[in-house]
């Protein structure tokens, strides 16, 4: 009986061994978080770079001082790559929201929303600092 079933048992054992190896692949393939984090980091990086670019000539701080929310929205719209939704909120140093209008180009269609924080110092004769929170998402 044992000798008759030995071949079948070995096949079952071989199948089990293959299953063990494939399960190892399956478990290790479930580590996509690093890639997602990297993609979110990329989007955060884009957001920060855009804010730095807008602030390089002092226009970001000037528009915040002058409460030019429309200009800020248009600037972000132009500076960010196509297909990216944004929502910017500006706070004063006490973290009170200063923008009285929504600075956004629409809702977020993506579940992957990246967040960027930036301190903007305006170049006015009197120092005024703002904390900017910029949320970005890929439009679907």
């Amino acid at each position, binding site marked *: 009986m044992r000798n008759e079933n030995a071949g079948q048992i*070995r096949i079952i*054992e071989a199948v089990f061994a*293959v299953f063990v*190896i494939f399960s*190892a692949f399956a478990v290790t393939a479930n580590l996509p978080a*690093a890639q997602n984090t990297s993609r979110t980091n990329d989007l955060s990086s884009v957001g*920060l770079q855009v*804010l730095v670019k807008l602030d390089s000539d002092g226009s970001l701080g000037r528009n915040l001082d002058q409460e030019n929310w429309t200009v800020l929205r248009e600037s972000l719209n132009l500076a960010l790559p196509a297909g990216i939704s944004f929502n910017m909120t500006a706070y004063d140093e006490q973290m009170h929201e200063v923008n009285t209008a929504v600075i956004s180009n629409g809702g977020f269609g993506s579940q992957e929303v990246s967040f960027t924080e930036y301190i903007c*110092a305006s170049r006015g004769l009197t120092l005024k600092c703002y904390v900017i929170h910029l949320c970005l998402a890929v439009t679907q």
Partner: protein
Amino acid sequence: MRKLNTFRANSSGQLLIVAALIIALMISSTTIYVYELDKGAGYSNSPTFADFALSLKQSTRNVMIGALANASNGGYRTVLSENLNHFSDLVRRLNQFGVCNLTCSLFEDSVYDLGIWFSWNSSDVDVSGAYADFGLMIDGFASRVSVPYAINATTSLASNCSYVLEGTEKHVNVTCRLYNEEEPALAKSIVVSYESAGNWIQISGTTIDYDNGTYLISITVPSDAAQVLLNVWDSRDIFVQAKHAL
């Protein structure tokens, strides 16, 4: 001997499973090791981290430009240290990458006082400048990073003056070249005055803007005018002054 062979034959399937388990363990451990390595590298060399330091540098530059504009327009030189201390306090509240600490050291030498240098009414080049060294320390969740950098904000005005005396008038031509950090820069405003009998009188002349930071100003002043004064504000509101004898 026969028993051993029988044992080997009976155990070959189990050996296969044991081998498969070892291979699975090796695959898992290698993948997890590479994953952790990537994750660690991703944190310390993340482009966002580099951009974060760059963004703070940009904001620091703006603080210095604002303070220099303030001081050059009649404010106290201490405004630079006050504003930078204020900004450092704000930076400490950031915690996106860990605890941030920004230290600054204002440059001091024979010309810089409290990090600010004014050299006006000199012969050729007049300067309003600010210079400071910074150290950005970030105590992150996994590492500690230190980013030293220096900021130099300088507006310089190179000017020369020539005139032709015609009767009771002097036709004066003043050429100005404005620079921000040694790069040609545009002026926001240029006000010209001349000194006559101890009084400074503002005058409007003809200005040719070459759109590259160079301006040619032509004015006509009385023959007794002794000096011409240029008050120049750049696009950042930093003030610089030049004086020429006639």
